């Protein structure tokens, strides 16, 4: 799947259809849908849901991808083609879509482990009731694979565009991260 995304990205770079002087929102979002899903459910368990995500969060992530602050072989060249206004248009489009329903379940003991991790990391201070707000992403109902990967990427400094998350995630062991991913996915 990642290979497919890379191919799409490479072809996008050579395709004038979404170049800045001929930006067509429908084309841009159709391209996004090839990985993030036609109906909002991503094609890969480690890809993020962007339907119904917060407008400002999507916009800032596109900016960070474009600037290399959030490094991604797939997303960086894709985002770099858009102007800030085009990024905003894309963000508005997806923020207005309904959040998809995904299947997720917890294992026995997950809730207690996850809640202990949440207390330790003071996660609710920013993430509140997990629905997201403006620049805070939604966590509830996300794909557990994406949640797990993201927490590990912060912990291992693969993702660096929210550097304080690295310190927080380093406090969490793998068992807690796994439990948190399943717990948040089921909310």
């Amino acid at each position, binding site marked *: 799947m990642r290979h497919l995304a890379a191919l799409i990205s490479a072809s996008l770079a050579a395709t004038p259809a979404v170049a800045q002087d001929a930006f067509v929102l429908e084309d841009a979002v159709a391209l996004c849908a090839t990985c993030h899903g036609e109906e909002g459910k991503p094609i890969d368990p480690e890809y993020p849901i962007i339907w119904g995500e917060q*407008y*400002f969060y999507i916009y*800032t992530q596109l900016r960070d991808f474009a600037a290399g602050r959030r490094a991604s072989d797939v997303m960086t060249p894709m985002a770099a083609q858009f102007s800030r206004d085009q990024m905003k248009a894309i963000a508005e489009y997806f923020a207005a879509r309904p959040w998809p329903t995904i299947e997720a379940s917890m294992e026995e003991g997950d809730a207690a482990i996850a809640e*202990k*991790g*949440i*207390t*330790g*990391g*003071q*996660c*609710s*201070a*920013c993430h*509140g*009731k997990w629905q997201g*707000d*403006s*620049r805070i992403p939604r966590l509830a109902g996300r794909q557990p694979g994406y949640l797990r990967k993201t927490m590990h990427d912060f912990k291992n400094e693969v993702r660096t*565009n*929210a*550097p*304080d998350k*690295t*310190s*927080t995630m*380093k*406090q969490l062991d793998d068992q807690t991260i796994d439990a948190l991913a399943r717990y948040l996915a089921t909310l």
Partner: protein
Amino acid sequence: MKLLRFTLAAAMAATLTGGAVSAQEETSASTLYGDLSHVTQDMLDRAAGDGNNFLHTNGNYHQTRYYPARQINTDNVRGLRPAWIFQTEIVDTMETSPIVVNGIMYVTTAFNHVYALDARTGRQIWHHKHNMGPVTTYCCGPNNRGVAVSGDRVFMGTLDAKLVALDAKTGKQLWETQIADPELGYSETMAPTVVNDMVLIGTNGGEYGIRGFVKAFDAATGELKWTFHTIPENSVGVWATHDATGRDMLRDIEAEKAALAKMGDPYETLGGGVWQNPAVDLETNRIYFVVGNPSPDLDGSLRPGDNLYTDSLVAVDMNTGEYICHFQYIAHDVWDLDAVSPPIITTVKDGGGNDVKGILHAGKTGYVYVHKADDCSLIRFSEPMVSQEGRWTLPTAEGARMLPGANGGVEWSPMAIDPNLHLSYAINLHQPMTYTVKSSPYPEGKLWLGGSFDVIPEEEQWGNVSAVDYNTGKIRWKVRTEQPMIGGILATAGGLVFTGEGNGLFKAYDSATGSELWRFQAGAGVNAPPSSYTVDGKQYIVVAAGGNAQLNYKRGNNIIAFTLAD
């Protein structure tokens, strides 16, 4: 004075007879108290003695949270029962201080909803939902701590860093003004303060690299009158090595001086939010407020110097915003143990036993600090209300344990005092944390802690209600609670203090002894400051039970008013 009291009593009688609207029509607008619903400057000035209304976030301009009514008292508080419960639309963290004007109550919720309620019944009169912009940047929950009232207007700060004025009778927005840029980390959760037709408000953002301020706006138009930057262009200070309690803060002054020479003064992104209301001294036309932490919270390497005026008590001229004096508790703070609980003006004993005008502040360190009002100097600090373990321990890459944790001591929660007992009442957190530092450059409006502070879930946590004699610094009484406490407290002339807990309990204590005299289970965290008022001959205690985002206490949406059972 007798005549004035008679006039007020007559107006109250009219209220009892004919209800709020007809009472307003029948009452002469020329009385000292106007038509009772129109909040005059005189009413605001005299709020400390007003047993009918609750006009200021912290009770009165001196912010004593000492309510003069005594119908509910130590003898009868056991008979306190819910009079009504109002459920808001938003089930989320609540920090609002209910404001009551002539039987009308104004409360706010998370995400900046405002409600006007009939304080007798809880009936909704109007509901205003702020038209929130797409960009908000805030730390510690989508909170709002309430409104300010003046004239026929209600004022609120918003998460998207605006100040709005509403018509008190309809909830219709009259004006709004953009205070600062939310994309850069500015937001508003504090209630404004209104004095002499000026609306005063600080800012959040110490976790995002803002440059903090207190601003004054024209109450009629929203026009900016003055700005006091809490971070001066020269923020270096005196290279203080010890904090206000005399402990070595372990600063590497030489390294800081070298960093300063290399990078210059960091004032533009140095933080210094003002989370809570100023105390207003009408005699001297001064306001006193406390300034929050430097940015980034845990990483001092990027901000050499004392980081003035972070972690400080500051006094400025009320009419111009000009600096008068300050006292810094912690220079170059790398623990977020800053100054957030609102200061209180009251008479205190100085070092020689003389009565002087004083300022009280409960630090996140867990001490009550007592200052002279005229020059901000420190008279004394109290015994610590929470254990001091490893203070100070510098944050490390691996994480270093210290107590108090970064939520304090005492958080933003306002204190109350009983001036007759010369006791200050604070709510505390016993919450050990690990402090981790990880340097990262200014992230242009994103969270910028420079590491993290993490609760140690394996360690026991709890809270206290503490009564401190501010004339001696000694703790008079201390009561332990199941969980770390956040919200606020109210003292009354009935010899009581009221405060709530994250587990839903709302309690009354004997203010002289700490004896628990009454409790109620609210079903969600009671993490907001209580208020009181009297209407139709009944005194009420009112509090929000909406839980707390920061400490993840159970959320709810209730405003609960209590009165004595008939």
